[in-house]
């Protein structure tokens, strides 16, 4: 049987490749926050309190542009609404845990740790203490995020812009679903979501992600119904 430490370390190693884009993104975030006129304390506090790169960018951009608090908070909520779905997806694997564990793990439920730990949960349904995987992946990501934000705040642009490291972000997300490219049903859902998000990119409140996701999930529901009816 795997010990808690072993499962924790598995989470650590599984999330490691994803740090290639996360670390430079954290640095860029720190630089952007300072450039937009926020104090080092405020910039760092967002990495600790909000701990969500996309929402932090939205916060900096909207506050510095003078948006009203209501617009800013709506945009943050819409940007992060995908995390609501992540919670629903992993809930069945964390059901046995007490509320303290659920409260702690929720803080660490980012895109990346959700993706790697959900994959681990699916493949290890019967493993006891499998939630240590999410703790391992989440804590690793959190630590790198805090350090890289601080580096961006105090050291500035130490990653040359010419490297185009922002391109590493779509590559990371691609790597997280690349194993689904072998299944036609998933490919249909993937292209529905991707094409719609590109078409909806300009709509307000950064709603293109959740809008494209919702329609793609409707398509997934239709596919699931067809599969059930054919059984």
């Amino acid at each position, binding site marked *: 049987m795997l010990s808690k430490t072993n499962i924790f370390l598995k989470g650590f190693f599984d999330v490691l*490749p994803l740090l290639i884009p996360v670390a430079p993104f954290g640095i860029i975030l720190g630089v952007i926050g300072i450039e937009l006129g926020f104090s080092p304390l405020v910039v760092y506090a967002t990495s600790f309190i909000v701990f969500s790169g996309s929402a932090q960018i939205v*916060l900096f951009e909207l506050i510095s542009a003078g948006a009203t608090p209501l617009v800013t908070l709506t945009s943050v909520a819409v940007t992060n609404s995908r995390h609501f779905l992540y919670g629903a997806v992993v809930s069945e694997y964390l059901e046995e845990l007490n509320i303290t564990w659920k409260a702690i793990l929720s803080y660490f439920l980012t895109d990346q740790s959700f993706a790697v730990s959900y994959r681990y949960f699916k493949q290890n349904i019967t493993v006891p203490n499998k939630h240590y995987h999410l703790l391992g992946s989440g804590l690793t990501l959190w630590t790198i995020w805090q350090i890289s934000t601080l580096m961006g705040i105090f050291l500035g642009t130490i990653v040359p812009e010419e490297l*185009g490291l922002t391109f590493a972000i779509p590559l990371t997300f691609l790597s997280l679903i690349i194993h689904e490219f072998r299944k036609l049903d998933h490919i249909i859902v993937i292209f529905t979501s991707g094409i719609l998000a590109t078409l909806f990119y300009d709509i307000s409140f950064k709603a293109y992600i959740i809008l494209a*996701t919702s329609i793609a999930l409707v398509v*997934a529901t239709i596919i699931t119904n067809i599969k059930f009816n054919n059984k």
Partner: protein
Amino acid sequence: MNWIIIFISGLITYFLRFSMISFIKKDMLSEKTKIVLSYVPSAVFPAIIFPAVLLDNSGSYVDYNDPKIIAILVAIIVGYFSKKIIATILSGLISYWIIIFLL
């Protein structure tokens, strides 16, 4: 004022993550719902991937032979056959750098 907005943003983000984890009980989801939920990564991540590759900083469409498009195709092919996260990311980044720096 900024501090209040930041704290509320933190609370919103936290409760979006926490609500479903703490709320859903096993019997509440049907088999069908669980299957639909298994599509969540395939429904969310492309909405981040496609615009980041197909649009430039100003939100206009890039050319069909843009370095990002060629590099992401390389990453898809390498990832498809290797099934490795790290190979997918590195093959995409390295082919991107080869195109912008060497060609």
